[in-house]
């Protein structure tokens, strides 16, 4: 589903965020992306979201090279990806419902579908009762869960998460991980950037480890085809 082929990302100024990164994730696979901060986790996620383009190498999503995507096609491509952001990225002047509905609205879903899907997604993260609240009325952990609901409301094929449990207590973190695991069970490819070692160990899933922009563990040789 996701395939990196000798991908390099060099930022203007000469800093190499990623060097010769190669790996592949199958559809429905769940993997952790680890490494200390600055190791290139965020850069890797940004490349998949097409927030940036690689300097070298190729990224294939479901067999299609991202390099061939035109600028105008990027929004449509992104509708197949759900992203959970570390800093939530919620719109503070809109209700929880409207925040979660955004990915559906931009894709032009029918109003009745929007309402049904939003409620289902909020129910899944246990926040259905807070549907009409504003983000700032929620705790940080709850905001994080709203972000997760927004990331999955349109049933994306790929789910990316950048430190999704950074603000949560261990118990809640485990619940969130269970959610991600459920999504991978129904065929969603999940990639989670985190440095919550205990969590990773508890989950026992594949781990892609980055160090100074190089993949030092979890590449194709070690795990998936």
């Amino acid at each position, binding site marked *: 589903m996701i395939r990196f082929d000798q991908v390099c990302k060099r930022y203007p100024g000469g800093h190499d965020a990623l060097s010769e990164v190669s790996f592949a994730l199958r559809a429905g696979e769940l993997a952790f992306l680890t490494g200390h901060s600055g190791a290139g986790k965020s850069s890797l996620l940004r490349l998949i979201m097409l927030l940036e383009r690689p300097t070298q190498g190729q990224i294939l*999503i479901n067999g*299609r090279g991202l390099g061939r995507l035109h600028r105008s096609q990027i*929004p*449509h491509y992104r509708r197949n990806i759900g992203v959970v952001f570390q800093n939530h990225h919620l719109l503070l002047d809109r209700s929880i419902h409207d925040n979660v509905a955004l990915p559906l609205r*931009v*894709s032009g879903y*029918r109003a009745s579908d929007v309402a*049904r899907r939003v409620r*289902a997604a909020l129910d899944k993260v246990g926040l259905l009762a807070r549907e009409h609240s504003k983000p700032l009325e929620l705790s940080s952990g709850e905001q994080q869960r709203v972000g997760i609901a927004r990331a999955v409301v349109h049933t994306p094929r790929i789910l990316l998460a950048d430190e999704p449990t950074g603000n949560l207590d261990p118990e809640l973190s485990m619940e969130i991980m269970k959610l991600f695991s459920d999504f991978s069970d*129904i065929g969603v490819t999940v990639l989670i950037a985190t440095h919550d070692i205990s969590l990773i160990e508890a989950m026992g899933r594949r781990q892609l480890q980055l160090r100074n922009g190089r993949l030092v563990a979890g590449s194709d040789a070690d795990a998936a085809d």
Partner: protein
Amino acid sequence: MPRTDRTPPRAPRPAPASGTRAPPGASARRLRLRDRFAAGARHHRETAARSLVRLATAPVQSLMTVLVIAIALALPTALYLVVASLQQLAGGLDAGNRLTLYLHQDAAPKAIDGLLAQLREHASVSAVQFISAEQGLAEFKASSGFGDALDLLDRNPLPPVAVVTARDQPSAAALTALADEFAKLPPVDEVQIDTQWVARVNAIAAIGRQAVLALATVLALGVLLIVGNTIRLAIENCREEILVVKLVGGTDAFARRPFLYMGFWYGLGGGILSWVMVAAGRWWLHYPVDRLAALYQSQWSLARLGVVELLVLAIAAGALGAMGARLAAGRQMSAIEH
């Protein structure tokens, strides 16, 4: 599996494993064109309303912008009103009411008497003054200073003249028709309408029209810049929102739409307010103008700003506002990426 065409993916998805609840509707991802259209129309409605609400949350700032736009639009509108009034003055109500009938020099006195009687009985004529060739020459001698030179002529070169004053205030067209009618009478050689001043006023009005056009163009550009600048700031304040919209797959057009509506509302408000301003100015001026017109025994008054002008102003200003917003949003929108 990402597809990059405009329709969302519709490949069958794996069935949810037991124990997990996928959001319902996962199998019906195909969005029909009609639904997309309905959703689009709904989105436009919501966006328009939300933009209006957003303007209302900063009322002072919004009002200032609207006021600046209104003043910019009020200038050409006021000038338009002046020109329209001038045209009314030239074209309609008070086009002069005097005709000068030059008679044939050899017209018999009897024929002239017949003509004068006929003119005096005419329904559209209020007064007729006859100036014989001799009277004309005497007047000319007295007023021109060519007295001695004229004595050298062996015959009087001036024709007899009848000056006809029309009843009431005929329109230019009616006066011309009257002139044509009199020109056909036998002793009449030529009829001249005293319309030179009408032509002059028309020429002034033409200059005025051009000036309105030039002023309107310049100030429309000003409105574009005002709205553009305001929208640029608004976009800067909404970076986060635009970013999120783009991250979840919103197109630039989608992210831009609230700002286009914002520009439209600014323009619309400015257009309506400019109409109110000019209408108030007209009301303020119309008493003294009417008094002046009355001194000239004229029914003439300032042109009115009607509903049509209101609609034209509001729609044109709204379109200008949206255009200004579009110009401002164009490059800025694609620059917000991360």
